[in-house]
């Protein structure tokens, strides 16, 4: 589904990603861990198509298509979804209107008519219930004044609405209380199927208890320096990153 080879990316001539290789197949869950500043969010943004980052080398292939030159919205239309580490506040645009617009723009890109209002409402209600989101919440301005946890839950609500093929969850667990973590993880698991894939970026094992990864990768200094199964996450939780840094720097 996703095949990244030798990906180099920089911002303002500063190299941040330095040769990433990653392959994600349908049905898989990959976890990416790594110290602060190692490039995890940058990698997510580059996959999602943020223009600020310049890809200086390598390829990103999504479903057999090189998506490197595509605009962010075109990648979204092909099924890429990024749950932001820091969701952006958009005053004046309600959650409902935003998601309606997003859904209909995705449909438009596929040559479909707007979703009938009745179906839209039903879908919104269904997904809001799945994530235990209060209906009143949906009429508020997008992310404006939302608590950290509310923002993250809202990201997964949008994911549930858009049903992407590849979802990248950038620290979706941070800011969530224990109950919210369970609800959000449940939501993600309900959406999982053999045809879609998830990349989970996290610092903690606790999310991976709920969303169990098939592979765990460690990103350090813009490179994936170690990969393993789910037990690698436990090892990191116990030992921290020093041993990996030593291995790499040696």
């Amino acid at each position: 589904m996703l095949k990244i080879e030798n990906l180099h990316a920089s911002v303002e001539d500063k190299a941040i990603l330095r040769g990433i290789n990653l392959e994600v197949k349908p049905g898989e869950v990959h976890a990416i861990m790594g110290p602060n500043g190692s490039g995890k969010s940058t990698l997510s943004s580059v996959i999602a198509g943020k223009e600020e980052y310049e890809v200086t080398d390598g390829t990103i292939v999504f479903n057999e298509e090189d998506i490197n030159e595509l605009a962010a919205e075109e990648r979204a239309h092909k099924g890429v979804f990024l749950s932001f580490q820091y969701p952006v506040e958009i005053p004046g645009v309600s959650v409902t209107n935003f998601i309606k617009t997003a859904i209909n723009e995705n449909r438009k890109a596929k040559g479909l008519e707007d979703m009938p209002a009745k179906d839209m409402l039903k879908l919104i209600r269904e997904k809001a219930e799945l994530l235990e989101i209060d209906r009143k919440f949906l009429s508020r301005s997008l992310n404006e004044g939302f608590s950290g946890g509310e923002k993250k839950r809202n990201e997964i609500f949008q994911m549930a609405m858009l049903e992407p093929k590849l979802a990248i969850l950038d620290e979706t667990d941070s800011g969530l209380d224990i109950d919210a973590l369970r609800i959000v993880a449940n939501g993600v698991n309900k959406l999982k199927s053999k045809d879609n894939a998830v990349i989970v970026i996290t610092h903690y094992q606790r999310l991976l208890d709920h969303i169990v990864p098939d592979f765990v990768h460690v990103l350090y200094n813009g490179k994936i320096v170690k990969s393993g199964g789910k037990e690698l996450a436990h090892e990191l939780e116990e030992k921290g990153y020093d041993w990996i840094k030593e291995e790499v720097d040696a």
Partner: protein
Amino acid sequence: MDLKEKLLSSYLVFENKLDIDSPINDIRNEAIKTFEEKGFPSKKEEAWKYTSLNKVLKEDYSIFPKQENAIDYKDVKKYFIHDIDTYKIVFIDGKYSSHLSETTHDGIDVCLMSAALTKPKYQLIIENYYNKVATKDSLTSLNTAFANEGAYIHIPKNKIVDKPIQIINFSTGNESATMLQPRNLIVVDENSHVQIIERHQSLTENAVLTNSVTEIFTNKRAIVDFYKIQNDNEKATLIDNTYVNQKRESIASVHTFSFGGKLIRNNLNYYQNGERIDSILKGVTILSDKQHVDHNTLVHHIEPNCESHQDYKGIFGDSSTGIFNGKIIVNKEAQKTNAFQSNNNILVSDKATINSKPQLEIFADDVKCSHGCTIGQLDESAMFYMRSRGIPEKEAKALLMYAFSNNVLSSVKIPEIKQRITKIIANKLGVNIGFDL
């Protein structure tokens, strides 16, 4: 012959046709003298520093329409708010169009200035109100000198007018360049409430210069909501001089939506003559190409315990220019005044410019005045966020711009106007999204 000379000599012709006994002839004569002395404003004047009329004044305008021009309702329906019932006062090239209009004398007067200026029935109101709040600046004086047609609206006390009133000025472009000087008078008596929509629309690409004067009087506890829709074509220039004189406890709001035209100058002046008055001035300006819109506001707080709220949002693309010059005067006696002013702007192009200038003259010591002006760009991270959810760049921009204006739009009380404005914005931004925020 330049336009000033042409106007002065036209006045002689015009004067000859007037009824010499009319009480407003003295007003006219005085006004033409004022205009003769002052001439058209130039960039040397502080208030006109950023707006030059030079180019506009070079056209050879016809001052009086030569013939009556009829237009079919179906051709111009789109310029009306047509999905609700309204009174309509419609002019074509400055002449009243009875077949497009729907006036009334049933308990209220919604009719013509030409009638009000000549018929004895209206004499008292004319004596008490006509030209009483309009100032003697040169353009207003020019209008006063030539004024003979426009909307006349008088709402006697304790009346909630059952439907909005539309004032629409069409120009047909049958002459290569036309000058229009509509003159409106709106008097709303005690406890009454009226909603008014005003629009100037040219129907061809021929040049039009409109120099309009509107006087609004809100008596005790009256409420007036006025909506100006400015979305004319690229050869149309509008100078809108609006004066609002408020008595105690009245509420007057003017919303100005400026999306089109070559050059627009809005001179909006409020005078608070009484206590516990609320004055509301709001605007959304969205410009492209070489459009130029200059908002010049004045709120004069004369008596204590009053409020004023100004909120102007502007979005400037291409090589457009926006000016906001907001003056607030608080007299020594006007204690406990609350005066708010905010002007927020977004520049979507490097070549667009905005000049924003608050002017506060405060002579009272116990007042709350706040003013703020911001100039920014569209939020890049918000753009990426929206695009990453599949909303294309153009639509994402439009949504952000709409959201930015939404504060102003949300105070529009007539849903159909809000819908219309929304549609105009969507058209202007070239998107097809609903914005039902």
